[in-house]
Structure formats: structure tokens, C-alpha cells
């Protein structure tokens, strides 16, 4: 299945774009879900206290998906000789590295400065 060759690039780009989108919130946040209102908003609206909080996770997922699809398309357009040189272990190494970065980003929840 030729399309499947794009999957490793998709996976790496999806997770990376998701983390970037989350870390740089609200820069790359495309839309917001307001669970109390059951409504979706473009961008990051200012929700009054009774209407908040907004949820951005769905938007970060969408950003990851878009970037992942673009990366997958780019991988398909890349010559097979170049693709063959890419170490397949990157498939697990990328999420491991991103997890280390994630834990550093989220450290303040656990009392670390």
C-alpha cells in the first residue's frame, strides 16, 4: 500500500505539531469549545466566568492532523532512496523525546519550578 509509506512522517509531524500548538497556545489555537454553552468558537474567545472555561484540546488535535497530513504528503513526494535512509527507530524516538519535553513543560503542576 503506497499511501502507508507516509504514515511514519504523519505520526512524527502530528505529535510535534500538537505539542507546539499546545505550548504556544493561543498562537496556533484554531477554535475553542465552550462546554457550558455546548458551542464552538473560532480562535480563542474571551468567555465570561459563568460561560467558561474554554477547551482547546480539540483544536490542538486538528492542528496536529493538518500538519501530519501535510508531512505525509511531503513524504510521499520524497524519492524512495531518501526515505530509505531515514532510521525507522525515529517512529518511537520522536514520541519519547516529545514526552520528555512535555514533562518539562508540565512540571509546575507537580511543584517543580
Amino acid at each position, binding site marked *: *500500500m503506497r499511501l*502507508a*509509506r507516509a*504514515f*511514519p512522517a*504523519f*505520526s512524527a509531524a*502530528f*505529535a510535534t505539531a*500538537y*505539542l507546539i500548538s*499546545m505550548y504556544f497556545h493561543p498562537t496556533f489555537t484554531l477554535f475553542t*469549545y465552550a*462546554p*457550558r454553552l455546548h458551542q464552538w468558537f473560532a480562535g480563542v474567545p474571551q468567555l465570561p466566568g459563568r460561560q467558561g*472555561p474554554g*477547551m482547546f*484540546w*480539540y483544536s*490542538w*488535535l486538528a492542528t*496536529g492532523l493538518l500538519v*501530519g497530513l501535510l508531512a505525509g504528503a511531503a513524504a510521499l513526494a520524497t524519492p524512495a532512496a531518501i526515505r530509505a535512509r531515514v532510521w*525507522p*527507530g525515529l*517512529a*518511537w*524516538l520522536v*514520541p*519519547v523525546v*516529545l*514526552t520528555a519535553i*512535555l*514533562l518539562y513543560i*508540565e512540571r*509546575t*503542576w*507537580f*511543584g517543580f519550578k
Partner: protein
Amino acid sequence: MITFLFVMHGLCAIALLGAITHQAAAVWLPVRAPDPSFTARFRAVKAASYVNAIIVLFLITFTLGAIVYPTYRIGARIYMEDLRMSAPVGSFEVKEHLITFALGLLPTYWYFWRAPLTPELEGARKGVVLVLAIFIWAAFLTGHVLNNIRGV
């Protein structure tokens, strides 16, 4: 309805946990010789046969989690924030990100495990299975503990 979906989310997560643990054990601790013990039988499964079940279970569990997430956000999370329980709230943040990484990894996981299995991808297959297993275990334990603190 949300309670039903939440229970289904938990049940699917348990099934997923069992499947990925079986596969990870079979890949990382393969049985070399016939052994009738429980642990050997646990590891002696055919790892490749779990792939589609793991993907389907993951997608169902993930979708159910995404549906019940808003209820957590305006219920259990605010309760924990009011009590200044920042570690449990942060744990959920980590859980949602890890499980998103795992979601993105699924296409590659399927690609590496499609038949016929190529020997040059064996290391990558083992790595991806281990990463998925760790993410799923972390998410399950976090969700379980948080549900004990304040259920949806």
C-alpha cells in the same frame, strides 16, 4: 448517558490495556521453549494478531474519552482546582497529551505490523509497541486515580 459512556470508556480501556500488555510481553519477552506456566502462556501469544484489535479498541476508547472530556472539564477538574489539587490536575494534562501522541502513532504502528513482517523493522516494531504500552498504562492509571478522587 454520560455515566454510561464513561463506564464504557473505562471498560474499553481495560480491554485495550490487556491487549497491549499481551503484545508487549510477547514482543519483549518471547517464550523460547515450551513452558506451561501462567507467565509463559501470557507471553506466548501471537503478537501480530493483536494489532487490529488494539487499534480498534484504542479508537473507541479515545472517542469515548473525547466525548466525556467536557464533563470532566467543568466538573471533576474544577472540583480539584478548588481544592488546590494541582498534581492530579496536571496528571490529567499529561494523560491527554500522552494519549494524543499515541493516537498519532497508530498509523505507523499499523504500518510496521502489516504482513509480511519485515526483519529490518523488528527493532522499530518493538519500540513502538513499548511506547504505546507505556502511554496506555500511564493514561489508564491516571484516569483510574482521578476517578477515585472525583468521578465524572
